[in-house]
């Protein structure tokens, strides 16, 4: 699997927020086997060092970073944040979020397409956090996106895949674009389900960070992603309405009346 020409061995991308401690974050990243972690940027005062120590931790882990524009509600804000992130993290990758509604954190898809176009033309490699809407996805590809990241459910909701039909349609419509289910996953079976339907990867954060044991949950998600991918390649059965006996009936002993 590759994103913008970068080959990756792991199909699990992990967020770095909301862990009980930096040490647990570090152990969870290792247990997940993630090669890409999402990061953000926030205000820091002259006497604060939180950002500097966080950056030292991430660098020591040797993982690639995918900065986000979390919390941005306008195109201008997202574009400026992307520029700051590109300099700060020395990467052209950007997870583009333009939030349109505060309760669901639903993407503002109109602003998203506009920002994606501006950033792609400026040399960014955009990972848009979007919905499963096919037409929006088409516009994002036209704008220059070579990866799409539809939500499974609202960020942090742990609801899993809210619209399986929509996600399947998106997969069928874009067979050659890497698709990542981003947001809303709660348990490893959600990740496995996304992978079984042919998604290239999943991105999650809260499901691991706020689990009772984040390190064990990171490992569980890694196993689920691998299981789901293996199952997809093994071509799963389609559900059917009628029973189909798994044991042959031919040659069955006649024991009835």
């Amino acid at each position: 699997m590759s994103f913008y020409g970068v080959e990756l061995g792991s199909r699990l991308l992990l967020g770095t927020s909301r862990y009980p401690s930096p040490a647990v974050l570090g152990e969870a990243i290792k247990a997940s086997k993630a090669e890409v972690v999402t990061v953000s940027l926030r205000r820091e005062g002259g006497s604060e060092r939180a950002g500097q120590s966080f950056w030292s931790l991430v660098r020591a882990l040797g993982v690639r970073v995918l900065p986000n524009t979390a919390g941005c509600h306008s195109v201008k804000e997202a574009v400026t944040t992307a520029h700051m992130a590109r300099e700060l993290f020395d990467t052209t990758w950007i997870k583009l979020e333009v939030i349109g509604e505060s309760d669901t954190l639903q993407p503002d898809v109109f602003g998203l397409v506009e920002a994606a176009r501006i950033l792609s033309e400026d040399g960014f490699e955009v990972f848009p956090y979007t919905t499963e809407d096919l037409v929006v996805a088409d516009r994002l590809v036209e704008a220059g996106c070579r990866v799409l990241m539809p939500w499974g459910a609202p960020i942090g909701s742990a609801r899993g895949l809210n619209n399986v039909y929509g996600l399947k349609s998106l997969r069928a419509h874009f067979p050659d674009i890497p698709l990542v289910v981003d947001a809303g996953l709660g348990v490893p079976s959600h990740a496995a389900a996304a992978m079984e339907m042919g998604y290239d990867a999943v991105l999650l954060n809260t499901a691991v960070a706020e689990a009772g044991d984040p390190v064990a949950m990171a490992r569980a998600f890694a196993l689920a992603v691998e299981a789901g991918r293996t199952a997809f390649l093994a071509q799963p059965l389609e559900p059917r309405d009628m029973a189909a006996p798994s044991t042959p009936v031919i040659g069955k002993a006649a024991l009835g009346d």
Partner: protein
Amino acid sequence: MRIFVNDEVRDVDAGTLAVALEAMGFGGRKIATAVNGRFVAATARPGTKLADGDRIEVVAPMQGG
């Protein structure tokens, strides 16, 4: 000169963004900056003159999902 740094009022005696950041303790730090909503690259800080009332944003790496 009175400027706003991450919404806090600061009185600085500095002509450029680079000098102001150094004076406020940001020297050598991994930060990114914007002035009045516009990104200012690190290489442009020494040439970015500040004016009274300017609004400066200083951000650093942070955890994110």
